[in-house]
């Protein structure tokens, strides 16, 4: 009896302190941003730098500026393990937190994004799926609540083909070439296929599609097919362990690494670690610099880590995915700032932040003010264009670090945009959505 009583009391104490420790105290002038993270599970090596990047940028804004125009940012992490079901549960758990509910949500998973799209308009929580998610959401007339700027999988795939054309001496030289797409066998991995197929018809290259099942620990069959097909270029849409194994297998069949290009989710620091020297020459697309020598980084070191670089490094500081999340968090903060200009410097609702996202205009000057000049490209979102068709840039692994090795490469908009509009129109028809007039 006494034992049970002690256990009950212990449980109550743990329960109460647990709640106090994990529930942020949100006041009226605080802007709440939910964080769907994956610090555990098979995709944790990619999820950790992402989560750390968000946390550090928001903390830096709070510590350096006192928040966004005086409105502090609060955030709460919820572990998704990159699992769509858990991601939806996290969203449901966090969407009403804070005095005004969730400002916006960054799912950081294409699967979770797909599931949240129908919910976003009902809950009035905008989704910012930066460079992932449903590509058709680029058509803001149909997808009012979803944003995928600065660029999408389809734009990326088309920019990759343009890059190949540049390397091969012009678009006419694409004819007769063979390009393989090694992709994660999931909604995410398949996203680039329609674009690559459409461009294959346009330019006359042969496309070889090779799917790799989750998680991608074993890929011998895939790379034997690459060895037999001898493609001139390999494009990869991988994630997590799939990337690491693919790079290692490519090296093991002696595929020329400088003709092996990953998409922007296949070019992190973790991806090249197991292959070590074998990864030298491997390339990937990106839309920001891989280095950490910008003023924004100095501010993070100063205002988040108190000048302690070694502590920052232990928290993924400066890694590719960390840098990408700095860009993502900056977009979120600037959207809130944009919305504040219209609605006032207070905690905003999701609907108000959505307006901010749709009217976001980050110029070169603004990037410079934020210490990000040259770190990424300007973005101007509009009612009809939630993607902006931003360019990509190619980075290459030299054995110890990533280096930028190309100019900015624009997507082939005249091919991609009609495809986006067609897919969006089909989605609108299927779901009974009346497109907005923009």
């Amino acid at each position: 009896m006494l034992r049970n009583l002690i256990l009950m009391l212990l449980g109550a104490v743990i329960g109460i302190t647990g709640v106090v420790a994990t529930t942020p105290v949100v006041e009226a002038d605080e802007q709440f941003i939910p964080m769907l993270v994956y610090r555990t599970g098979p995709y944790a090596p990619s999820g950790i730098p992402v989560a750390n990047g968000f946390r550090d940028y928001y903390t830096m804004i709070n510590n350096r500026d006192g928040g966004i125009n005086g409105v502090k940012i609060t955030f709460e992490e919820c572990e998704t393990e990159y699992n769509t079901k858990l991601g939806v549960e996290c969203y449901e758990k966090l969407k009403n937190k804070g005095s005004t509910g969730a400002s916006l949500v960054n799912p950081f998973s294409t699967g979770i994004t797909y599931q949240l799209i129908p919910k976003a308009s009902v809950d009035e929580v905008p989704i910012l799926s930066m460079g992932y998610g449903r590509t058709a959401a680029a058509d803001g007339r149909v997808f009012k609540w979803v944003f995928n700027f600065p660029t999408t999988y389809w734009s990326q795939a088309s920019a990759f083909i343009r890059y190949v054309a540049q390397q091969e001496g012009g678009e006419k030289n694409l004819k007769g070439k063979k390009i393989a797409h090694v992709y994660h066998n999931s909604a995410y991995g398949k996203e680039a296929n329609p674009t690559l197929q459409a461009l294959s018809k346009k330019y006359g290259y042969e496309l070889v599609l090779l799917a790799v099942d989750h998680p991608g620990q074993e890929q011998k069959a895939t790379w034997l097919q690459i060895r037999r097909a001898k493609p001139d270029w390999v494009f990869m849409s991988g994630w997590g362990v799939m990337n690491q194994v693919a790079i290692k297998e490519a090296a093991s069949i002696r595929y020329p690494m400088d003709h092996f290009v990953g998409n922007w989710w296949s070019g992190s620091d973790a991806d090249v670690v197991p292959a070590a020297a074998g990864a030298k020459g491997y390339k990937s697309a990106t839309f920001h610099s891989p280095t950490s020598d910008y003023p924004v980084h100095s501010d993070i070191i100063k205002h988040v880590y108190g000048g302690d670089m070694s502590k920052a490094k232990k928290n993924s500081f400066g890694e590719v995915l960390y840098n990408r999340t700095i860009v993502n968090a900056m977009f979120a903060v600037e959207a809130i700032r944009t919305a504040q200009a219209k609605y006032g410097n207070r905690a905003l609702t999701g609907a108000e932040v959505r307006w901010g996202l749709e009217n976001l205009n980050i110029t070169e000057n603004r990037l410079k003010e934020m210490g990000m000049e040259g770190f990424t490209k300007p973005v101007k979102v509009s009612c009809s264009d939630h993607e902006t068709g931003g360019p990509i840039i190619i980075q290459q692994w030299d054995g110890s670090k990533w280096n930028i090795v190309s100019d900015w490469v624009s997507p082939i908009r005249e091919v991609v945009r009609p495809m986006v509009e067609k897919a969006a129109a089909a989605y609108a028809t299927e779901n009974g959505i009346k497109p907005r007039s923009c």
Partner: protein
Amino acid sequence: MEIISFLNLVFVNPLVEIFSYPIFFAEVVISGLLTGVMYSLVALGFVLIFKASGVFNFAQGAMVLFAALNLVGFIEQGFPIWLALLLTIIVMIILAFLIERFMLRHLINQEDIILFMATIGLTFLLQGFGETLWGSNVKPLDLGIPNQSFEVAGLLLNEFDLFAAGSGAILVGVLAVFFHYTRIGRALRAVADDHQAAMAVGIPLKTIWIIVWSVAGFVGLVAGIMWGAKSGVQFSLSLIALKALPVLILGGFTSVPGAIVGGLIIGVGEKIAEIYWRPLVGGAIENWFAYVLALAFLLFRPQGLFGERIIERV
């Protein structure tokens, strides 16, 4: 017309390809055999524990991860490789002791399903504890095993794959000798046949369990080294247990040679299916094809290729 096209994809095109490019086919088979040995390494851990205690150890994949995490962790702490290996083996023995003391001892004579459920719990414990201890980042594992590719008669071979296959073969040989020609091995088999009878003739059940879980931990370490060297040591190592399941179904849960032969058949079968029958369904079939292959065998031999046929009166 569609039926003809379908029949072509099933029966004609693959065979035409195989006979048109025999060297490539040989490369596919060799690659499948080498991959199969890697599967066998994981399957062996399952077999050892099932053979000795009748427990299907769901945590074997997590043990592979846990062993590899400890090894890399010790190396990162600055220990020389030989010492890191030794320390990891000691950790796995301690783990076996703790499993016996805090899990198995309390479940003697319980239903198999209860023991199975306990190992599911152990899986989460090992994954969480391992990552808490050593972190979730991808950790490179380089023990100096050669990793160059070379061609022999047009076949591309990789030194690492051959090394892994050799290690697997040696491990199996040692285990086979251990089971058949040592006192402990005989005791292990006695325990596997009947717990109570084994205890009645004086075989110390608890000691046997510690030994067998330690050996399974060592096998997990070898598997962790081989797989970890390919992908880096990270959480997904624990998922390779899924690759071992069809091997076990095929080879039988109680047979060491079964784990090896099953691994080879699954390895070769899935590679051939993925490469030659891929156009039929659009690719990425090797994961589930392994199960189809295993289940097809079960139609003819329900106990697996080398499993013991169990006849019970009902």
